[in-house]
């Protein structure tokens, strides 16, 4: 298990996210074979790999949008696979950003940012508004407070989605290919917001195809293929100087898409 090396990196206390022997099957189709991964507080981990490698499924298992078939996931001491766990309360502390934004189309940006604050956290309207305004400013969209999601560009919608997740004051943020559905010219703004978030010390797990972002921002890069972690380590190693042949093949495909063979 490659992850045992990283576990030892946690000198003080236990990691914020601890995944052990995670398995996930859809019917007879085994998507995750045996995943073990630790994420420390304040760490930014980028998960890369070919499509169908199980990256998104692994991420969705962390907040149990997918129910794991085996293994354990512990987030800040909460055993996410425990059926007695109050999963709604646990999810409050795990922010999630989706590939397709999933903003609530019938609500304004303000309502998107406040609906869960008032209904789930029980914050007052004025308190929720204050939090929403602060987070919308963080993603540079203060002037869009009263807009409907449908009137925003994809990049703007994704930044609102990030602000919505941040408004719950999560301990960790999960990003599921946040820029894959965007027009190329709006990708930069979203990545910049994520970069700022990383610099502010947010714990982040990012499934992404943006190698440049992973190289610059990630504390650690995890390469997944075929439902297992093939290789993990600092970005300069995994992306700059991969050990495994599968990693090399993948990187040569994504970094030099024009070349064949």
């Amino acid at each position, binding site marked *: 298990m490659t992850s045992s090396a990283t576990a030892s990196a946690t000198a003080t206390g236990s990691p914020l996210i601890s995944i052990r022997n995670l398995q996930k099957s859809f019917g007879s189709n085994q998507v995750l074979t045996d995943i073990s991964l630790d994420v420390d507080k304040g760490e930014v981990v980028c998960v890369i790999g070919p499509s169908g490698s199980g990256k998104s499924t692994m991420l969705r298992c962390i907040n149990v949008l997918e129910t794991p078939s085996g293994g354990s996931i512990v987030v800040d001491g909460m055993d996410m696979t425990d059926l007695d766990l109050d999963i709604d309360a646990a999810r409050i502390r795990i922010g999630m950003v989706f590939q397709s934004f999933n903003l609530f*189309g019938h609500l304004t940006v303000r309502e998107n940012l406040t609906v869960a604050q008032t209904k789930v956290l029980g914050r007052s309207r004025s308190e929720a508004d204050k939090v929403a305004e602060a987070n919308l400013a963080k993603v540079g969209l203060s002037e869009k407070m009263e807009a409907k999601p449908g009137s925003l560009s994809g990049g703007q919608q994704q930044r609102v989605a990030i602000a919505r997740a941040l408004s719950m004051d999560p301990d960790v943020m999960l990003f599921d290919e946040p820029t894959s559905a965007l027009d190329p010219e709006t990708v930069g703004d979203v990545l910049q917001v994520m970069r700022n978030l990383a610099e502010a010390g947010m714990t982040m797990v990012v499934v992404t195809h943006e190698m440049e972002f992973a190289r610059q921002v990630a504390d650690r890069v995890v390469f997944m293929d075929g439902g297992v972690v093939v290789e993990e380590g600092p970005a300069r190693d995994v992306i700059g100087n991969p050990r495994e042949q599968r990693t090399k093949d993948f990187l040569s495909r994504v970094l030099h898409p024009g070349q064949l063979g």
Partner: protein
Amino acid sequence: MSSPHATGDGGRNGTGIPVATATPKAKMSKRQKAKISRGIQYGILVVIAVVIAVVADWPTLIDTFGRVDIAAGMLPDVITKALKNTVVFTGLGFVLGLAIAIVLALMRLSSVGVYRWIAFVYIEFFRGLPALVVFLVMGFGLPVAFPGFILPQLVVIMIALALVSSAYMAETIRAGIQAVPKGQVEAARSLGMSSSRAMFTIVLPQAMRIILPPLTNELILLTKDSSLAYILGSSVDGRELAALGRAEIVNSANLTPFIVIALCYLIITIPLSYLSRVLEKKYGSADSGVK
């Protein structure tokens, strides 16, 4: 039927290659054909209108269906009582039917198999029954089956209309709920909402926009179905449009009341179908920002 393209304009003008112009039809351009076709259609319309105007026995027709004095005599009761009763019956039936339909739709989507089954059987049963049968059973069957258990007429009509409409509306609502992208629920759940809160604050409001136009259509159908209440009989003040129409026809020995109540139904249904079109335009094509 188009002129052969292979011959180009020459073929169309009839001056070109002999093979292509072998049939006289090929000599006509598309525009000429369309003109002739339109001419024929107008012609048919004029002929029909003329035939009706000549053949119809206008004095008898007007005397049978258009007696202004009889129509005037129906006022104001036809509006203040019958039209009002139709609207009240339909409205109450619709509201109760909608409530039942929402419950049924949620049952159809439940993870509990028994609920899915009950809802499925209910929907298939009432969707397949003629409204008339439901009215007969509710009005005459139940009082016989449960002697002494007599509901007020208004309640019987309301329940009958609710039973008739709820099965259709349940399917419409279920389809609307399923049309809301799964990502909406996932986003709501990831923010810590329970599945029922996600359903009521995120999914149902968006499903409503999808199902409002078809629900308005259902309201139109229900307005017409409410006419079946006449078979239950009623007090003079309890008559809706169809019952009043029948009574007036018997009283006046004339069919003018038919025309009057037909117009009254249209007073209700035409604004509703306008509303349905407006809603469809407003929500049907709107980009809701949802993927």
